[in-house]
């Protein structure tokens, strides 16, 4: 319970770790959008290369990236197989009963799989190198223009940071309640699924009740410390935009322009 990592943040001091969350968020957003423009070996190659360079710049052990990909491994495989079997084009490679595999279909499937892999890799990289709290800060600042049209951006970011702060507390509490229920003979770990689901109810109810009590207390404590929404508030946590942030953005824009041009030229 003590070495619990919220989200997946892995502390470090690499180029990527030092970047401002805003530049990272913008870059990832642009990259995830732009990936749909890629449609050739060159363009996918470029994107993949960019991703690999980013991974290198994060100085993270590769197994962390692998760990991020593992949950989607099945989806990747599934997409690949479905696409290989259903897409047509180019020369037929295998024609065996119901299985038709064509060269065009194969290439297309590889692209799709690569696309998902790259998306997962860069988002994993984002969460691995950004502390959740900076993440919330970055989102608050990036979306702050929306405050003008009364979108509760500040409240949303505060909600995010408070939920993050309470995750370990609630985990501890769940653990405690689980032990308390186990002491009363409830069994969560064995038996048929239906029975186990049923055993979860007496776990959730006290958890909910205590969460509401907590929320109530917390609201009182916040108000008593002078919290009154986004009025006349200063910020303690600072976001610092440095030259490396600008460089990264320029690089991303450069990549995007190159991709668009290549798509138009059909490279």
């Amino acid at each position, binding site marked *: 319970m003590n070495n619990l990592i919220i989200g997946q943040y892995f502390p470090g001091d690499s180029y990527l770790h030092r970047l401002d969350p805003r530049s990272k968020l913008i870059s990832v957003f642009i990259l995830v959008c732009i990936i749909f423009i890629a449609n050739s070996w060159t363009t996918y190659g470029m994107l993949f290369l960019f991703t690999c360079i980013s991974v290198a710049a994060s100085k993270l052990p590769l197994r962390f990236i692998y760990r991020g990909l593992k949950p989607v491994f099945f989806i990747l495989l599934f997409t690949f197989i479905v696409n290989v079997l259903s897409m047509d084009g180019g020369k037929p490679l295998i024609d065996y009963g119901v299985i038709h595999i064509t060269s065009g279909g194969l290439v297309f499937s590889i692209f799709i799989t690569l696309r998902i892999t790259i998306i997962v890799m860069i988002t994993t990289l984002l969460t691995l190198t950004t502390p959740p709290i900076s993440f919330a800060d970055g989102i608050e600042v990036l979306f702050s223009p929306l405050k003008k049209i009364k979108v509760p951006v500040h409240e949303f970011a505060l909600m995010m940071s408070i939920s993050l702060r309470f995750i370990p507390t609630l985990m501890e509490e769940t653990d405690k309640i689980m032990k308390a229920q186990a002491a009363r003979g409830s069994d969560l770990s064995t038996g048929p699924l239906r029975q186990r689901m049923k055993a979860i109810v007496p776990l959730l109810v006290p958890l909910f009740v205590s969460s509401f009590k907590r929320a109530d207390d*917390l609201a009182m*404590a916040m108000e008593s410390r002078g919290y009154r929404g986004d009025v006349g508030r200063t910020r303690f946590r600072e976001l610092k935009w440095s030259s490396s942030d600008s460089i990264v953005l320029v690089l991303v824009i450069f990549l995007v322009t190159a991709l668009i041009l290549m798509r138009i030229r059909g490279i």
Partner: protein
Amino acid sequence: MKQKENPIIDVSNVYYRYEKETNWILEDINLTVYQGEWLAITGHNGSGKSTLAKCLKGLIMPEKGTISVLHWDTTDKEKLWDIRRTVGMVFQNPDNQFVGATVKDDVAFGMENSGIERQEMLKRLETSLKQVRMFDYVDREPHQLSGGQKQRVAIAGIIALEPSIIILDEATSMLDPEGRKSVMKLMRHLNKENNITVISITHDLEEVIHADRMIVMNDGKVIKEGKPRDLFQSTNDFEKVGLDLPFTIKLRRCLKEKGLEISDNALFEEELVNELWTLYSTN
């Protein structure tokens, strides 16, 4: 001696209830708190102590009567935030008042709300955390802290706001004796050195004997008020309202019942010891 004649909070004829047409939770409360004093409020569960504290801080408004803090009426909307800044409050549950993701974020939270400049925040962050001896933990997350440590962080968050009054609402009841002792020591230091007025709400009469003045509440009323030494002269009333007497007082009473001639004055263990060993030498 520091001056304890300047009233800082004035409560007169206050009535409060959470819902209309029910019994009063606070009934005709009259109370003056003086600048720089240590006031203890005690009473059984549900006697209205926390409710009174919330009134003093302007978190709830009395239905009848007035409360003024530094001559500001708590019903004055324009002064409400000044009042909340003047009165700091530490709550019972250390977990449910920890807002920030880390110790420093939590201490900064109140300062952010008051719109304090970042440079000033950093300065106060350091001094307040050093005062509660938690500066080494500045980057820790709440789940890596013990209850007592969280409570100290909460206190640091309050002193960073430089309030004139700190209300401790059973702030030490979830701590072990060691944690309790160190928090009380810290508060006493703040009370003496920084001249912060302390209102300490507690069931623990052991803690109360150190106060300058105390009030006892019962069913929403103040039934006793005065110096602990005076109030503990007669012990029956405390037991009548369901409070457990401090060890010294109990011992004092037992010894008297055994026929020893002991005065009703001894409050601290040391005083009782002194009385005991001089008992026969004076006779």
